[in-house]
């Protein structure tokens, strides 16, 4: 131990800027977006922001396509550019584009978009009324959105725990704010924001402490370095156990696994629906990407230690998700519990610890993501005078009133239930078979049981929509603008396509191969 460490010559870090081009594009666009907020006049902001957001996301996709096949570590080995990372990033970007379509929608609410005209104005106060009457809208949503997407791109690609922690915060902080910006039912929205923030901060403290413990053991934050340290000493160490467990807390919180799930229903219900859709899909993809990377790269050597732990978590996640979903009366909460259950199903791919596990998890995330975006898009369309009509009783007889929307929603529910010829079946099948191959047959049996129960409550909603008598004074289905319509069309197309013709995407997921160390 001496204090002379700083005098050791520091080699110039290697940094190939081209290899993290998608990240640079999105973060750069986020900064420009901040400047747009500062310098562009209010009337023109929305248009500029929209062009910026879609152009940057599409450019990032293009950059990603250009990187296809790259396998390298860059930015001082803190970012991995490998198959799974690129696949996850691509999924996040495509889902974010669809999510941005939903956020950009502003013709379904007569007052404008889904966000409060000024977050600091008192709910129901004079200022808010005046701003609403003046037709103000919040364009700060867009820089927050872009920062969040940037964090999501970095999260599954980060190759050391420091980068991962920073990415975690970069994706979380904007989300905490976005969750609180709903135009309607603002008290609920603010409450969701507060809960998400407090619990999220709590969970990242755990993540950080776990990181510290693993660092204490290995002397490095790099995932590969931790794996090397573990291979020398087979993990028979208190620091490692504490580190693994607490690290898992932080990651499992983000994927909404039981018992770290309780924020999910509250936040999903309270947040503006487009944000809920974005959150339910992209966060899940990014968080599972990071979870896979940590578990496979850094902790692959001690898999026998953490596999049983994740078995238990997967089982209780699936069961709690489907069982509690049954008694829900709010459609957004129901979808939230369904998303918890799906987190359990996706965990099956993680516990497989195999290449098939990675591929099936990634496929599941993509398939589930598009269906979920579509489902929340439908939720945003069913409205009454006070905003979205999310109580289940209000959905009774929807199929009689607008069969097309109810039919589309039915398709998504069938996909969630895993009915053949929808993307849900293919993805469930993929993770189940990967898990069986990985020796997790008991968990798969529970999963099959859980999907049977889940089919029940999805079917209940279908029955409610098509066979119940429409309520008097029921909600109406608003005709959306091209934004939501496009998002819905993409959701439907992907859900059907991945059910009927899953092979191309599956091949892509399989070619993604394994994580780079």
């Amino acid at each position, binding site marked *: 131990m001496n204090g002379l460490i700083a005098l050791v010559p520091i080699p110039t870090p290697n940094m190939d800027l081209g290899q993290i081009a998608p990240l640079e594009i999105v973060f750069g666009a986020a900064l420009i977006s901040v400047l747009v907020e500062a310098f562009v006049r209010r009337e023109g902001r929305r248009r500029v922001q929209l062009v910026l957001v879609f152009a940057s996301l599409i450019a990032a996709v293009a950059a990603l396509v250009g990187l296809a096949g790259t396998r390298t570590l860059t930015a001082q080995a803190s970012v991995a550019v490998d198959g799974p990372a690129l696949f996850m990033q691509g999924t996040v970007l495509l889902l974010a584009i669809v999510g941005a379509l939903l956020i950009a929608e502003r013709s379904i609410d007569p007052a404008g978009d889904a966000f409060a005209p000024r977050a*600091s104005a008192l709910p129901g106060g004079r200022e808010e009324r005046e701003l609403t009457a003046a037709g103000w809208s919040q364009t700060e949503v867009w820089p927050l959105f872009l920062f969040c997407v940037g964090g999501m791109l970095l999260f599954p690609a980060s190759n050391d725990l420091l980068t991962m922690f920073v990415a975690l915060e970069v994706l979380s*902080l904007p989300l905490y704010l976005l969750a609180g910006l709903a135009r309607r039912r603002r008290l609920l929205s603010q*409450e969701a*924001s507060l809960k998400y923030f407090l619990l999220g901060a709590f969970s990242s403290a755990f993540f*950080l402490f776990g*990181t510290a413990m693993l*660092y204490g053991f290995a002397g490095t934050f790099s995932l590969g370095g931790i794996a090397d340290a573990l291979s020398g000493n087979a993990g028979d160490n208190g620091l490692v156990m504490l580190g693994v467990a607490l690290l898992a807390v932080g990651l499992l919180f983000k994927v909404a696994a039981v018992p770290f799930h309780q924020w999910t229903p509250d936040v999903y219900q309270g947040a503006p629906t487009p944000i809920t859709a974005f959150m339910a899909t992209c966060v899940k993809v990014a968080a599972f990407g990071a979870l896979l990377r940590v578990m496979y790269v850094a902790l692959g050597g001690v898999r026998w230690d953490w596999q049983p732990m994740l078995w238990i978590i997967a089982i209780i996640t699936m069961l709690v998700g489907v069982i509690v979903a049954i008694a829900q009366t709010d459609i957004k909460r129901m979808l939230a519990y369904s998303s918890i259950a799906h987190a359990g199903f996706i965990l099956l791919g993680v516990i497989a610890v195999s290449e098939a596990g990675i591929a099936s998890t990634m496929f599941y995330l993509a398939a589930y993501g598009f269906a979920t975006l579509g489902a929340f898009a439908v939720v945003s369309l069913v409205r009454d005078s006070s905003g979205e009509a999310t109580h289940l009783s209000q959905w009774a007889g929807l199929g009689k009133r607008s069969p097309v929307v109810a039919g589309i929603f039915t398709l998504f529910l069938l996909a969630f239930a895993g009915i053949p010829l929808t993307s849900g079946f293919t993805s469930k099948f993929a993770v189940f078979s990967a898990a069986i191959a990985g020796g997790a047959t008991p968990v798969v049996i529970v999963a099959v049981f859980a999907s049977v129960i889940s089919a029940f409550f999805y079917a209940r909603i279908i029955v409610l929509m098509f066979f119940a008598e429409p309520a008097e004074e029921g909600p109406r289905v608003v005709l959306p603008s091209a934004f939501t319509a496009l998002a819905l069309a993409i959701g439907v197309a992907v859900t059907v396509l991945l059910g009927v013709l899953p092979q191309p995407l599956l091949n892509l997921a399989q070619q993604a191969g394994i994580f780079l160390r």
Partner: protein
Amino acid sequence: MTPNYYIVLSALLFTIGAVGVLVRRNAIVLFMCVELMLNATNLALVTFARVHGNLDGQVMAFFVMVVAAAEVVVGLAIIVTIFRSRRSASVDEASLLKY
């Protein structure tokens, strides 16, 4: 040096923070407890950096501080908004979303 004392202290601070989150009801205090957890971690990180003789832990500690500052900004913004609309910073009163 014996790192154990520092680690145990760090763990205790972390626990105090965690328990604080559970028992306090003022959102600000609750949030301060989370910050305490982060700083407890910083202590552990710095200790381990010393043990391992590399700077990674200290670098991480810097990052944690920055992130904590950013978190403070976001957190206080949210808490102040809640306080303004509810006239109270009690987290228990913000419980409309349930079941």
